[in-house]
């Protein structure tokens, strides 16, 4: 049913059906034009170089030095970019084609880096002395305010201690001492002091340690600063206290200084004399303003330098990356020292041969080379890479296929049908045209903003949905269609295509909820009859319909897969696969499940009450029995017998002949080879080697081939049953979707409506919106997507798809950005 897209034989070519024909080419490039040639080929982007020096380490290769140089330049560029990031400058994103020379750029980058480092070092030094001065200023101000009061209380304390001391020393002269002190206090107490700043969180510990170290013989005054201060050493913002410590004696001084150092407290000199203080404050203020202007000038200079760089940054970055990739490629070529040329081998599509030759010619002319490059095609038995010419629409679908496995060279690509069948299967599980419209709007936003978004860097999930925007668009379009067929719009039905086909039995309509309605017209012309919605028999009817639909669609898709295996066999001229694989497979599947599909349709058309389960089960258990009331058409028993026999015959047909015939073919080929070897006496040794090699490759292990065929057959026979059952997920998911959406509609929106309260209604609407978007539009989309994916990867593709190829990665400058 679905096979209409085959295109009538495999002879006319179709885009995307087969990967591009490739050939292995050899280029012999004179060394003086090698760089330019590779660069032109990179612009063209249609040649995948083979690594001819795979045994050499990166350091042994010809252009290791140049790569190191490029790596160094890339490092400098990263440094510059980091600096620009700190200065909040973004490189301008104009797409530039590099016009400058690499050597010139190298010198320039060297200069810029040196200048930036110097500017940074200067700036750092200035910044440091600036914050030192700032701290000093704080000490001068804060300590100045409370120095004298602190000094006097410190002196008082000292006197007290000394008094105690002398009291202890002599009992005779307390009065005298007191007198003395009254008269000459300053002479008695000669206190030293240290001032500075200490981090606030350390201040308590600082005080305690000082106290212990001097045995209480000190006085500490701390004044908190409201705003955090820049620490000169670390450059960070720290909350600090200004402190003044008074002590007496040299030893106490040494201890205090050590403790200050240990606590990271910066000390600043402080004058006792008020005049000197004022003078000092003036001087520091002046210096501060001087430093400020110097720093600002420095920053301005740096920013203008960086701004100038930022205009060209992208260009330089691109140039360095291009050069690096060119040298990487050159390193893959093998060098011929005597002949002064490089030999390259690589895969390219056959259609690109002229373009490559043209690029070679241009490179020869542009680099004034005496000798041109040589282009020749090599013949090899190696499997070429798989290359599809895709566009922005087909690429996402091809990626779905490639995620399972890259197509073998030139085998039929399921991607062609995936473009339609994937969104279609998705839509069967997601049939609701309201939800479909929401998806369509969301994806249209991406498609309209495509140009802008594709140049931007997006988040992981956004990136993924953006990449699949055309897949989602197709999914949305098909969901709108299937939604119309299911007649669901956010689980609400409409009489879009005329009145219902059912009506009451009589005018009173009394038995509408017991015996049900009767059919009065032809079936509803498009989609489900709206009368089913909300009726008591809705679920039994929908279940029966969706289950049968899943089987019909599944059988159709599996048949399409088997038909594609026929086109593959035709394409590779493999008659064995047509006769001993394709035909028995087709017969087996259709004599069982094709027959089931026919029965389903016949049952619908005739309105028979036959039990299809019973028919299918007794077709195997007792095929010769009379069908009785389960008979759908005349001659059904005989037909079933024939089909059963066909299915039974097709199993050994799949299993046995192919391995034996393959062995026979192999033996014939061997004999043929022996004859030719005898006939031509003058084969040179190289050709002999080649023959031996190919012979070694085709060693025929009969047991292996037979086991492989056995596995294949078992897989197909069991798969026919399990894959058909697997398609029932279409029914399950579609049922879940419609039930969920009707629950959200009835139990949230209608319930909230029933309260006749605006507040409750608003809450109901909000809950409904979140449930619809979160559960139905996001989660259900994801699960339906995954199930559609599985149906394609397993049930569809295992009928024909090998998927053991490898992708074509041409050397191209356009894909440079994605590498990093």
């Amino acid at each position, binding site marked *: 049913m679905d096979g209409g897209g085959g295109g009538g034989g495999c002879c006319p070519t179709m885009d995307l059906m087969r990967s591009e024909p490739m050939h292995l080419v050899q280029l012999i490039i004179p060394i003086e034009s090698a760089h330019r040639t590779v660069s032109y080929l990179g612009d063209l982007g249609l040649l995948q170089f083979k690594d001819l020096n795979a045994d050499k380490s990166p350091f042994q290769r010809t252009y290791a030095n140049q790569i190191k140089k490029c790596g160094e330049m890339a490092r400098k560029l990263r440094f510059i970019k980091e600096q620009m990031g700190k200065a909040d400058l973004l490189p301008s994103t104009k797409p530039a084609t590099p016009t400058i020379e690499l050597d010139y750029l190298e010198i320039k980058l060297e200069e810029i880096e040196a200048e930036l480092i110097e500017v940074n070092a200067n700036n750092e030094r200035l910044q440091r002395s600036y914050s030192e001065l700032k701290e000093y200023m704080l000490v001068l101000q804060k300590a100045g305010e409370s120095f004298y009061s602190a000094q006097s209380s410190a002196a008082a304390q000292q006197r007290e201690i000394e008094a105690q001391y002398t009291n202890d020393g002599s009992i005779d002269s307390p009065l005298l001492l007191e007198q003395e002190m009254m008269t000459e206090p300053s002479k008695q107490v000669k206190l030293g002091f240290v001032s500075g700043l200490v981090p606030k969180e350390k201040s308590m510990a600082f005080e305690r340690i000082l106290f212990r170290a001097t045995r209480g013989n000190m006085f500490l005054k701390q004044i908190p600063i409201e705003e955090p201060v820049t620490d000169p050493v670390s450059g960070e913002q720290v909350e600090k206290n200004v402190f003044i410590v008074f002590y007496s004696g040299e030893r106490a001084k040494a201890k205090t200084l050590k403790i200050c150092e240990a606590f990271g407290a910066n000390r600043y000199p402080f004058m006792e004399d008020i005049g000197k203080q004022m003078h000092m404050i003036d001087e520091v203020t002046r210096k501060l303003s001087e430093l400020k202007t110097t720093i600002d000038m420095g920053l301005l200079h740096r920013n203008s330098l960086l701004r100038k760089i930022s205009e060209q940054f992208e260009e330089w970055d691109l140039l360095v990356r291009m050069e690096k990739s060119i040298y990487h490629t050159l390193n893959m070529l093998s060098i011929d020292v005597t002949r002064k040329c490089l030999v390259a081998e690589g895969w390219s599509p056959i259609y690109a041969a002229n373009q490559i030759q043209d690029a070679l010619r241009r490179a020869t002319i542009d680099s004034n080379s005496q000798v041109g490059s040589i282009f020749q095609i090599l013949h090899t038995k190696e499997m070429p890479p798989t290359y599809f010419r895709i566009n922005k629409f087909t690429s996402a679908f091809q990626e779905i296929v490639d995620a399972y496995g890259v197509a073998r060279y030139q085998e039929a690509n399921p991607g062609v049908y995936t473009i339609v069948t994937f969104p279609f299967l998705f839509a069967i599980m997601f049939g609701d045209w309201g939800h479909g419209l929401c998806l369509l709007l969301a994806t249209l936003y991406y498609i309209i903003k495509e140009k802008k978004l594709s140049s931007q860097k997006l988040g992981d999930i956004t990136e993924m949905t953006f990449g699949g925007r055309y897949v989602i668009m197709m999914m949305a379009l098909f969901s709108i269609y299937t939604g119309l067929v299911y007649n669901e719009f956010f689980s609400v039905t409409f009489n879009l295509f005329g009145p219902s086909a059912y009506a009451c039995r009589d005018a009173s309509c009394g038995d509408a*909820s017991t015996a049900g309605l*009767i059919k009065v017209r032809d079936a509803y012309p498009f989609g489900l009859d709206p009368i089913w919605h909300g009726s008591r028999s809705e679920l039994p009817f929908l279940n029966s319909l969706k289950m049968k639909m899943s089987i019909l669609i599944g059988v159709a898709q599996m048949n399409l897969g088997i038909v594609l295996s026929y086109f593959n066999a035709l394409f590779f001229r493999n008659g064995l696969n047509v006769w001993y694989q394709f035909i028995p497979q087709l017969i087996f599947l259709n004599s069982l499940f094709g027959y089931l599909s026919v029965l389903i349709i016949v049952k619908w058309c005739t309105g028979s009450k036959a039990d299809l389960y019973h028919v299918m089960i007794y077709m195997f258990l007792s095929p010769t029995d009379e069908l009785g009331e389960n008979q759908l058409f005349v001659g059904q028993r005989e037909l079933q017998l024939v089909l059963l026999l066909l299915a039974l015959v097709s199993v050994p047909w799949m299993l046995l002949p192919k391995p034996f015939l393959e062995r026979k073919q192999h033996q014939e080929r061997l004999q043929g080879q022996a004859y030719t070897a005898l006939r031509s006496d003058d084969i040179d040794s190289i050709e002999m080697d080649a023959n031996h090699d190919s012979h070694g490759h085709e060693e025929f292990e009969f047991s292996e081939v037979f086991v492989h065929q056995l596995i294949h057959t078992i897989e197909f026979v069991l798969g026919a049953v399990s894959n058909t059952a697997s398609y029932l997920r279409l029914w399950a998911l579609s049922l879940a979707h419609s039930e969920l959406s009707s629950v959200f509609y009835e139990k949230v929106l209608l319930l909230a409506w029933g309260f006749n309260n605006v507040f409750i209604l608003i809450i109901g609407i909000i809950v409904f919106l979140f449930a619809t978007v979160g559960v139905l539009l996001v989660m259900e989309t994801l699960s339906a997507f995954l199930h559609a994916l599985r149906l394609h990867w397993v049930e569809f593709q295992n009928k024909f798809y090998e998927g053991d190829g490898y992708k074509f990665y041409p050397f191209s400058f356009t894909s440079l950005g994605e590498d990093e």
Partner: protein
Amino acid sequence: MGFWVTTLIFILIGVVASLSARLCFNRGPSTNLFHLTLIITATVCCWMMWAIVYLAQMKPLIVPILNEE
């Protein structure tokens, strides 16, 4: 509208779509065949879905029984 009329409409839509794709995006025989394949597959899929639902409702064994409310 019967089964065959609507089927004819589907065929017509398919033919019109194929022709307009051929006229509007003529990019060489291989691409045209690709477009044709896509359109035919899409039409067949849509027709199948409709046909299944239509056939299932032609002679139903179950009739709608309304909820008593």
